[in-house]
C-alpha cells in the first residue's frame, strides 16, 4: 500500500538542495528565440519570396546536419533538438543577401556550426556568435556574391540604403525602412518584424534590455555627433537584427550587467567607426564579433563587489 506511511517499498530520491527549479529550460529559451524570429521570417518571405525560403531551408538544414555529423563523429550526445542549431541557421539566413547561391549558404551553415561552435566544445563554449562567424567567413570568401543586392518583390538590382548613406544620398523613406521595403539581407530589412520579436524576447526576459539600449543608443549619439540621421543608421542596415538577436546572444556576451552596458557601447562605437571611416558600408557583423572577443575582459573588469567585501580604504 503506497498510502501507508510505514510501507517499506517506498523509494525516495536524494538530491542536493535546492530541490525545486525555475520553469525555464535551455530548449525553452532556444525555441523562444525561434518564436521571436517568426515575424522576421514572415517578413523575409514576404519581401524576398522564394529567395528567402530557399536560404532559410538551406542554412537551417546545414546547421542541423553539421551539428549531428560533428557530434556523431566525436561520439558525443546529439543535441540537435535543443533548438540552438535552428537559431543559428535562421540568424545566418537572415544575414545573407537574397541571391546568394545555395551552396554558399550551405558552406556558411557548416562553417557556423564547426568553426563557430563545435570546435570550442559545443553549446555554451563558443566565444563568438556562430551565425556571425558563418557570415564573416562568407563575406571574406565570396565578397562579390555577399554584396549583390536586389530590391524586394521585383528582384531588380539595387543597393542597400546603407550604401546610399555611405555615398551620401538616400532614396528610401522612413516607412520603407521601417517595414522592410528596401534592399539588404533577407532578415534585416524589416525593423517592424524585428521589433515584434525583440519585444517578445524582452518580455520573456530571454534577452537583457541593456545591450540593445546601449548599442542603439551609442549609434544614435555618434550619428548625431557626426551630423547624420540616427534613424537611418538604426533602420538602414543590419543594426536592428544585430542589436536584438545577435549582440544579445547569451553565450557570447558578458554575464554582468555593467559588462552588458559596455558591450553595447563598444559595439556601437566600432559599428560607427566602420560605417564612417571603413571601406565597408556595413559593420554590424564585425562590431559584434570584435566585442565578443572582449567579453571575458569585460566580465573581469565589471565583476560586482561581493556582498560584505570590505570596501577599498579611501
Amino acid at each position: 500500500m503506497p498510502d501507508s506511511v510505514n510501507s517499506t517499498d517506498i523509494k525516495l530520491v536524494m538530491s542536493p538542495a535546492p530541490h525545486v527549479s525555475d520553469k525555464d529550460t535551455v530548449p525553452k529559451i532556444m525555441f523562444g528565440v525561434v518564436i521571436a524570429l517568426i515575424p522576421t521570417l514572415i517578413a523575409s518571405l514576404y519581401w524576398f519570396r522564394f529567395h528567402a525560403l530557399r536560404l532559410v531551408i538551406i542554412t537551417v538544414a546545414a546547421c542541423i546536419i553539421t551539428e549531428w555529423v560533428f557530434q556523431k563523429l566525436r561520439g558525443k550526445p546529439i543535441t540537435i533538438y535543443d533548438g540552438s542549431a535552428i537559431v543559428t541557421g535562421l540568424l545566418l539566413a537572415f544575414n545573407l543577401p537574397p541571391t546568394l547561391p545555395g551552396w554558399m549558404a550551405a558552406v556558411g551553415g557548416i562553417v557556423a556550426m564547426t568553426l563557430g561552435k563545435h570546435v570550442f566544445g559545443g553549446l555554451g563554449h563558443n566565444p563568438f556568435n556562430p551565425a556571425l562567424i558563418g557570415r564573416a567567413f562568407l563575406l571574406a570568401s565570396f565578397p562579390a556574391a555577399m554584396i549583390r543586392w536586389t530590391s524586394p518583390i521585383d528582384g531588380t538590382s539595387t543597393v542597400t540604403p546603407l550604401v546610399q548613406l555611405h555615398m551620401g544620398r538616400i532614396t528610401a523613406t522612413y516607412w520603407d525602412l521601417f517595414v522592410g521595403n528596401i534592399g539588404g539581407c533577407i532578415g534585416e530589412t524589416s525593423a517592424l518584424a524585428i521589433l515584434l520579436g525583440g519585444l517578445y524576447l524582452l518580455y520573456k526576459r530571454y534577452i537583457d534590455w541593456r545591450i540593445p539600449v546601449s548599442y542603439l543608443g551609442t549609434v544614435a549619439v555618434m550619428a548625431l555627433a557626426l551630423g547624420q540621421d540616427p534613424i537611418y543608421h538604426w533602420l538602414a542596415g543590419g543594426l536592428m537584427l544585430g542589436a536584438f538577436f545577435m549582440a544579445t546572444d547569451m553565450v557570447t556576451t558578458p554575464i554582468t550587467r555593467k559588462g552588458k552596458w559596455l558591450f553595447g557601447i563598444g559595439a556601437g562605437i566600432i559599428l560607427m567607426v566602420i560605417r564612417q571611416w571603413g571601406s565597408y558600408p556595413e559593420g554590424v557583423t564585425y562590431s559584434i564579433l570584435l566585442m565578443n572577443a572582449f567579453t571575458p575582459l569585460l566580465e573581469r573588469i565589471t565583476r560586482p563587489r561581493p556582498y560584505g567585501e570590505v570596501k577599498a580604504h579611501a
Partner: protein
Amino acid sequence: MSKAKTFRGGIHPAGNKELTSTQAIVAMPAPAEVTVLLKQHAGAPCRPLVKKGDVVNKGQKIGDSDEFISAPVHAPVSGVVKAVQPSRDPAGSIVQAVVIENDGEERLDPSVQPHPDLDQLDAETIKKIVREAGIVGLGGATFPTHVKLSPPPDKKIEVLIINGCECEPYLTCDHRLMVEQPERVVFGTRALMKALGVEKAYIGIENNKPDAIAALEKATADYPGIEVVPLQYKYPQGSEKQLITAITGKEVPFNGLPMDVGVVVNNVETAAAVQAAIQDGMPLIERIVTVSGEGVRHPQNLAVRIGTPISEVIAAAGGFIGTPKQVIIGGPLTGVAQPDLSVPVTKCNTGILVFNELKRPSKPEPCIRCGRCVDACPSFLLPVTLAHLSDIGQYDKALELGLLACVECGSCSYVCPAHRFLLQSILVAKREIEAQRYKKTS
C-alpha cells in the same frame, strides 16, 4: 503605504503556501516513543545525562555540554529511557540519541519553573533561562541563542531583528505562529531586547503575510521600541545578512557576524520559545512543523514534540497520498532530502515536505551563460564562475572572487535553465577552503 523594503537580487519561486497558510496549528499528540538527538544545534554535541532504565520527567534536562557554543536537550515526554544509542540526524550525520518510552503521564520536571514577570528578571537571568531551556535558532540554522545574546564586550549591539520572513516556499509555521500567538512573539522579543540591552527591535515580515503583519502591529501597539517592518516577498529575504541589509541598510562583512554591525537576528519561533521558557518555565521540547507538499493527504501545521519520528508526523497529517518520491526536511530551497523516514523531528525541523515527483530535473545541461545566476545572487557573486573554478579545483581563485560571501541560499541553482548544480559546486570549494583554514589553525 511606503514601498516594502528588500535586498538586491533574489528569486520568486512559487510559494505554495496556501496549502497550509489558512489552517490553525494543530497540537499533535505525543508519540509512544521519542528519539532525542544529543546534537540538534550548531556547536559541540551534548553528553547524555541519563542512562538506559532511568525514569525521566517532561522538561528534564537529559543532555548538556560544558562548551559555550552548545545547547542542552530535554525530555519532551515523561517516561523511561529505553536506550542511549547512535541515530541518524536529518543532515545525514550519526549522533548519539536518547530514546524515551512515553509513559503518557506528562509528569512535569521540578525544574520547570515559570517566571511570569519580565520586569523582575535581569539580562543575565534571561540569558541563563534561554541557555538552560536549550533554545537555538529555530529558523533552521540552530545556532545557540544564548551565544547570540552574549556578544564580546567590544561589540555594541544596537538593534534586535526578529525574522518573520519565512521566505522558503511551502513553509507556514512562522506565519501561523505570528497570526495565532503574536503576543508570545512580542513577549519573547521584549525579553531578548532586555537580554541584549537594546531599545530598538524590528520584526521583519514579508508582505505576502498581511494577516501576520496586522496581528503583530496590533500586539506591538503598546511597545514603541518594537517596529513591524513589511518586506518584499522575495527569496531569500529571510537570510540573515539580506534581512539586515533590507531593514538597516547595513552590510555585514563577509567574514563577520551580524554583531559586527550592531545587530542580532532571531527567528519569530525562537522568540516564542523564549516566551515559553520564561513564562511557562518550559524548555524547548516542541516546535511547529509545516507538513506539506502534494504527497501529504492533509497538509497542515503541527505542534510536534522534539524526537517524534517524521513518519508519525506524516501519519498525523493523514499520511501519504499517492507514492512519495521525495521527502524533504526543511524548505524546498535549503532543506535536506531524506533517504527514508527514520529520522526524528529536531529543533531545526521547520517543515516536512512530501513530493510525488521531482521538482527539478536531475540532469544538468551545458551552461549557456545567460547570467540569471548573476542577477539572482543576493551576495552579488558570479555563481557560474565560482562553480566552474570549484569544478576544476581552483579553490583559491574562487576565494579571491568572494566565495565566502555565498549565503548558500541556492538561488543560482534555482534559476539556472540548464539545471546545473551551481550551489553544490560552490559548496565543495567553500568546504574545502574552510577545511584548509581549520587545519591551519589547529
